[in-house]
């Protein structure tokens, strides 16, 4: 089986970068303070999660954290879905936002069960990015301000990397000695944090870009967003499968139910 569950550290790097980059893009983040806060939160949550995952005994604190993370994942997934309705590139995609969103969620649900595929897709993003860069130059403009604020939704996501870190430790796909060596230690955590940093820095030149005006940027951002959504769903599903996952399951199901109920009742869509 080449699609065994789990990500390698390299894949974790690219998934993290794609996750933050697309998050900033879709939530139209403009402020440096927001970006820095998001990155710090990512690192903090990843660190806590990493330590928690490496503790042998199941403790009360661990259980609490798991529930918090599950709720964060569910909320993030819902926010991500909602964010598409206000995203200009989706409005001009050629199909109604409802069709776009539901099809994207459908693909993401499929990918949430094949996280390895998400990892490989993430590994391909640098090549897509290189192609996009050629057409995106006229649209790039670094214009970050310090405190112009942005959507709070991006704050919800930091639960994701922990599970991906965990999975990367269990991967058996790659037989190389290098990867065997990196199975232990902080490698996955560092990869994730480095990826998040790269994603954050890469976003800066794109911060003022209007993806709706360039088709290729749109496609690139949608692809990254698909990775983000798949990672959210994967995290939520993975947490729900845990031993004490009943509460997170209820939380996640409630959020999804409410999200879809709101979407379907919105007369504008």
């Amino acid at each position, binding site marked *: 089986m080449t699609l065994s569950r789990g990500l*390698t550290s390299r894949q974790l790097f690219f998934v993290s970068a794609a996750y933050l980059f697309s998050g900033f893009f879709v939530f139209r983040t403009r402020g440096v303070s927001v970006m820095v806060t998001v990155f710090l939160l990512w690192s903090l949550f990843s660190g806590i999660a990493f330590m928690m995952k490496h503790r042998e005994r199941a403790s009360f604190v661990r259980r609490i954290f798991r529930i918090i993370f599950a709720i964060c994942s569910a909320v993030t997934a819902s926010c991500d879905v909602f964010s598409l309705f206000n995203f200009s590139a989706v409005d001009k995609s050629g199909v109604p936002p409802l069709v776009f969103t539901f099809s994207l969620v459908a693909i993401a649900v499929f990918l949430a069960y094949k996280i390895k595929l998400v990892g490989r*897709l993430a590994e391909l993003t640098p090549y897509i990015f290189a192609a996009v860069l050629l057409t995106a130059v006229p649209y790039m403009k670094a214009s970050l301000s310090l405190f112009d604020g942005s959507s709070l939704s991006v704050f919800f996501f930091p639960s994701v990397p922990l599970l991906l870190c965990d999975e990367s430790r269990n991967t058996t796909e790659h037989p190389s000695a290098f990867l065997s060596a990196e199975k232990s230690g902080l490698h996955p955590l560092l990869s994730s944090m480095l990826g998040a940093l790269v994603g954050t820095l890469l976003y800066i030149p794109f911060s003022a870009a209007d993806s709706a005006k360039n088709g290729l940027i749109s496609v690139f951002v949608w692809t990254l967003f698909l990775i983000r959504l798949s990672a959210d769903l994967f995290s939520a599903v993975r947490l729900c499968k845990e031993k004490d996952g009943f509460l997170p399951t209820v939380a996640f199901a409630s959020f999804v139910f409410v999200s879809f109920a709101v979407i379907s009742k919105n007369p504008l869509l």
Partner: protein
Amino acid sequence: MDIYESKKEEFRQRFEKMSDLSVREFCCGRLRICIFYISNFCSKNMIAEQIINPLSAAYGREGNAFSVESSIASASLSILGSGDEAEESLLAGSAVLMYDGSPRYALSVGTKNEEGRSGNEPDTENVIRGPHEGFTENGESNAMLIRRRLHTAKLKKLNFSVGTLSKTDVSIMYIEGIAREKLVFEVVRRIKNTDVATVTDSGMIELCIQDGKYALFPTVGNSERPDKVAAKLTEGRVAIIVDGSPVVLTVPYLFCEGFQVTEDYAKSPWYAGFVRILRLAAMAISVWLPAVFTAILTHHEYMVPPATLNVISESRKGLATPIFSEVIIVFLLFELVREVGLRMPKAVGSAVGIVGALLLGDSAIEAGIASSSVLIIVALAALCNFIIPPYMNPSVIYRFIMVLLAGFFGLYGFFIGFVCGVLALAGKSSFGTPYLSPIAPISPEGMKDFPIMTSVSQMKIAPVSITGKRIKRTGKEKEK
């Protein structure tokens, strides 16, 4: 077991799983003689004329006390002191002779088949620099052509018979210790499971053993060049030779192989790297450009700069068909002309070319069938398609699907087609090796050869994704 027998057995064991090793044993009175040689690598006539006939004649003349060394009628005769020397000599194309009571390990007789270029250079894989030799329809000769390039006892050959009626000889070759055991086992299993009445070409075997019955992109490679197949064997692949076909199959086949050309390794890495990027860009243009063009001009005209939009609108004046239909029509016309050109005899080919040029040129524009902008896009996509021959056919299908999706749903359709296409490739595997390796999953050793290439001397480790372990190409021992 006496010394002669044990020596013979020890030497035979060195070439286990090597079906093209031939052993000829005979006796001259009480003297037991054994000749080892590799079929087709050695000339059977020379063995008969220079070894067997003279020895028989000498025995007839002199009786038991005749000297073997002096009886052999060969200009190239040497004495071998050890098994290693004998192995080397055998793999270099000589016949190794052992006889009862010899004080030496063995004798080496130069009986190498010195036939020159056996097959013409294949039309599909022309090179300016490099050997101009191709495989032939003879399976045994093809194995010999590979063995000529790899003088190692680790190069194994196993034979099978496929086809209930044709009983076609199919053999696999691999280098023991480099090719994964699981891979060899899987290839053998799939060949043995091939259930067909006749095998007329290696293409039939390819379809029977590939991953997925309806795979769009190939998961089994093929080549008509012995040098290319030999190089692939050193990377841990398995070659499949089908008697009656000049095309040898190699597995696993990865996506990156379509962009690698034998000649790249004889050029400066800078230029080879540049050409690789050009090929990748050509592939992207070939499959995605017409779809992007259709999507933007059908659903998102606001994305096009006004000046460019004016030029396109001018070129489309007087055309009744929408741009989407126009792209489809021109594509179908082009594929029609291409198919006719392929099937027609060469003598008629030029005439077909002229008709094609008229059909897809000025006449089409004047007749109001197509606009110049669409013709340029389609022609560019078609031209780029020819740069990567292995993906010529799948690209046509994928491009067509992309144009349909883009035409109906705009950039959203393009996105869906793009993501599904990339995911399908990312999830695909060829005989257990991820299809997009070494870029997804990333393999640092493999990335020295794709997408851009480093110097050949830097490629010291065989692709880990294929071999399953780190194997030094330059050293004799595995790196721990």
